[in-house]
């Protein structure tokens, strides 16, 4: 039957009514429906689709009508009810804010942009970064796969304009108290950092925060800045700025050991700056540092301790112990070791932070002799096919290295691959200790400890089923102010049965204590 309802002198705009027509047509028992004003066009359409039934002649352009061909009177009433519902619906605004497609568009919205965070695919990164520099915008370049030539060109251009290029492959910076990319909520203070390493920078800044100190600026340079090809352009620019920064009292430099020639330049510049300076060339020789009157750190943690001591005007001393005390640590390690079967003698370090992995290996290599790895300390210790093959003897894996990130986000964003590996390692009867990091803060996964603690439980159960005891030693890299919370994350891991130490260095030393007791 064809039914009609007319409302005199009611106006609705035609587009609303077209959408409503479409929706009511989907109701059960409705073959055809037209909801509209009685315009010539709508009248013509109604004729054409057979809805111009009884009473339709009287509909005028000022009238609103609902016409439908439906199976029953009840169906038509449902149509009318639906039309009323749709007409009265208040749309919730779900339209997204405008995002410009280009830098030029962004500058129209905010002409004061002074920092660009760039994480586009490496082959496009140069052009995006260069364009930012041309607009006098400092750059933090998270992208990797940028060629050395491109890096050098960007940095030389930037240096000529006194702009920063933090990166490529730079994950961490805190500028003017703003954490960029992977960075933590660190107290503001008088320690200025320039770092060629992402998680190294995070570890040092977090420990400074935990020790009660604070950060003025944390500048990144990217891992290759101190290579001969680049010549430390950004380390020198950053160092110069911090030397002249009135808010910075103490300088802290973090890097893998640089080329000797570059190291000399940097150290000379730092010494000439006149501010107390802690240098952490992870695993490097302290001689060149100390002979210039600078303070060499033996670990990332030690760098934090020394920087905080200097900031307080105290004399820094090497920190190589345990926050819980040496004796308690030894007792705890003995208790862990006592539960293991003969044959359990290896450590497996599974890291999401590359620098933390590197530091751990450097702290352990002296005693272990050989450590297999996808980022080996010695070329002959390269573990082939690290992602899909199995670990052997003492093995340390950096899940952020290229092999593990093909087609995947960085493990600090998606830690699932590392969590799976914790379980895999538990099945190996030779494994005594699994050593892990857990990096929180902005940029990182919203709750990496949750994911990891599940894996730890499963791994421990798996080992227990086979009569073994698996020790899991962990440290959380973060601060109390981070969205995931340091203590909350530590608690989750401890509750899963991990021994949680306050730093990567302590966790590594503790793992060594267990191995020493097997």
């Amino acid at each position, binding site marked *: 039957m064809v039914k009609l309802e007319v409302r005199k002198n009611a106006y609705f705009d035609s587009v609303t009514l*077209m959408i409503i027509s479409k929706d009511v047509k989907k109701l059960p028992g409705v073959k055809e429906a037209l909801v509209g004003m009685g315009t010539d066009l709508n009248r013509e359409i109604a004729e054409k689709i057979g809805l111009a039934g009884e009473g339709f002649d009287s509909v005028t352009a000022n009238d609103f009508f609902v016409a439908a061909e439906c199976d029953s009177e009840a169906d038509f009433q449902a149509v009318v009810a639906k039309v009323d519902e749709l007409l009265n619906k208040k749309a919730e605004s779900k339209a997204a804010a405008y995002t410009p497609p280009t*830098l030029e568009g962004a500058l129209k919205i905010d002409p004061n*942009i002074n920092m660009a965070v760039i994480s586009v695919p490496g082959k496009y990164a140069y052009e995006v970064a260069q364009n930012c520099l041309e607009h006098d915008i400092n750059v933090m370049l998270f992208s990797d796969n940028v060629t050395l030539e491109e890096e050098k060109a960007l940095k030389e251009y930037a240096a000529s304009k006194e702009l920063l290029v933090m990166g490529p492959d730079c994950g961490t910076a805190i500028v003017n108290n703003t954490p960029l990319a992977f960075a933590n909520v660190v107290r503001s203070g008088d320690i200025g950092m320039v770092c060629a390493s992402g998680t190294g920078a995070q570890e040092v800044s977090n420990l400074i925060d935990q020790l009660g100190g604070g950060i003025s600026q944390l500048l990144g340079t990217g891992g290759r800045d101190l290579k001969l090809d680049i010549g430390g352009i950004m380390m020198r620019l*950053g160092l110069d700025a911090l030397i002249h920064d009135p808010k910075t009292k103490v300088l802290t430099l973090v890097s893998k050991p640089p080329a000797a020639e570059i190291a000399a330049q940097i150290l000379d510049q730092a010494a000439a700056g006149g501010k107390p300076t802690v240098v952490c060339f992870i695993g490097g020789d302290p001689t060149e540092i100390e002979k210039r009157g600078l303070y060499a750190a033996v670990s990332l943690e030690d760098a934090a301790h020394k920087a905080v001591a200097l900031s307080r005007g105290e004399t820094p001393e090497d920190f190589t112990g345990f926050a819980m005390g040496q004796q308690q640590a030894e007792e705890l390690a003995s208790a862990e070791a006592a539960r293991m079967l003969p044959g359990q003698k290896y450590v497996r370090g599974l890291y999401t932070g590359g620098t933390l992995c590197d530091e751990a290996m450097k702290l352990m290599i002296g005693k272990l002799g050989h450590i297999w790895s996808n980022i080996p300390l010695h070329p002959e210790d390269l573990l082939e096919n690290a992602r899909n093959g199995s670990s052997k003897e003492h093995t340390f894996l950096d899940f952020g290295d290229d092999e593990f990130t093909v087609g995947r986000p960085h493990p600090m964003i998606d830690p699932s691959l590392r969590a799976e590996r914790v379980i895999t390692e538990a099945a190996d009867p030779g494994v005594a200790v699994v050593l892990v990091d857990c990096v929180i803060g902005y940029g990182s996964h919203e709750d990496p400890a949750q994911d990891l603690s599940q894996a730890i439980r499963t791994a421990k159960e798996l080992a227990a089923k086979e009569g073994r005891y698996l020790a899991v030693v962990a440290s959380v890299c973060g601060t109390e102010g981070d969205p995931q919370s340091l203590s909350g994350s530590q608690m989750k891991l401890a509750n899963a049965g991990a021994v949680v130490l306050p730093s990567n260095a302590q966790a590594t030393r503790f793992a060594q204590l267990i191995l020493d007791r097997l």
Partner: protein
Amino acid sequence: MSKVNELFEKKLSVVNFGIESFYQDLLKQNKPAIHVDWKPVAGGDKKIAGYLRKLRKPPLGEEIAQANQEALRRILAAQPTLVGMSTAGEAIPGMTPTTILHAGPPVTWERMCGPVRGAVMGGLIYEGLAKNLEEAEALAASGKITFSPCHHHDAVGPMAGVVTYSMPVWHMVNKAFGNDAYCTMNEGLGKVLRFGACDQEVFDRLHRMRDVYYPVLKQALERHGEIDMKVMIAQALQMGDEAHNRNKAGTSLFIREILSDLLDTDFSMEQKQAALSFLNNNDHTFLNLSMPVCKCTMDPIFDIPHCTVVATMCRNGTDFGIRIAGLGKDAWFTAPAEIVKGLYFPGFDEADANPDLGDSCITETTGIGGFCMAAAPAIVQFVGGQVQDAINYSTQMYEITVGESNTYKIPALDFRGGAVGIDLLKVVETGIRPIINTGIAHKDYGVGQVGAGLVHPPEECFRKAIEACAQAWT
């Protein structure tokens, strides 16, 4: 102290390219940040990106930028003025009794789409050149009829855009540059020639338009004198029109402007009423005025060397064609027209739709229509339902234009001038294509309009054009 130290003293304001969560993290901390919806230049097409680099390289890049500024200056300086009415035969250059103008880039009878064929056959019958559709079809195919784009004759036409010898046309002059533009009168909605309808009802209306309404309107305009159309469009934009798909305000303003003079004409009250009703009963009366306004606004940019501003966008239902100011009037860059995404009248869907059709996107080319969608909240539901979407479309167009209008302002954007002067290079760079607000014709002639919605020019048009620029200028 280096500039880095100056940075330490400033508030950090971040722009983020790539991983969006880095931006979200900054928002969570209430830090000023903007996320760029970054895409590789030219969609990652190396060849096209190479042309872009060549064209941007100094000194050519600077010449192009200057040429585009000159184009902007000319567009903004235009003084489109309605000076009167005549017939196509009297006024349009190159018009002959056997010429049929059509919308879009050049197209042969063989390749014409359904609605254009219908309109051509209808036009031949209307002119008395054929008695019926059969004769008309044979004549159209015979080679005796000259088909030519409106755009080659200072004219524009909505949808099929068919203009024949005796049709009345509005006569627009750009007083700043002295060039003309012509457009027929809008017939209304439903079964009309521009959608390819060609039956007696259509002919009857066309005859009334020519014999009854036109004489009244022509005389009314003679009495009234010239009308500054730029001001009228600016007002219509303040009243909820975007002057392409919504013309209620413009139509009302136009009638108000000429009403007194129309009533003062020498014709019978009946004829005057008929003419007035014809204008008044059709919300799109004003479309056929806004289109020639835009046409005469854009044509003066054609002779600027090295200008990459898009001077024409139009479609014939088969192809979409664009012309670039610096490459001249004869260089068309075409690709198959796309299907319009939109809202269909009850009883129709996409399967019924003809590909994109008509010269009406001269409005977008000039910076109104879809470019001013934020000005017309009443029709934003075509674009997905929310006012913010329309605001986003209008805002996005600033990314691909040389400048902003000094006259056509958008209330919802705090009276910011609409985006003006589509730069081919920016379109290619950003991958953002101009947004067009348009009606949808049925693919078969005689059915009429089946909906309205949004469409873009095909990417291919811009690729071909930038290649031609690179070849001509480097």
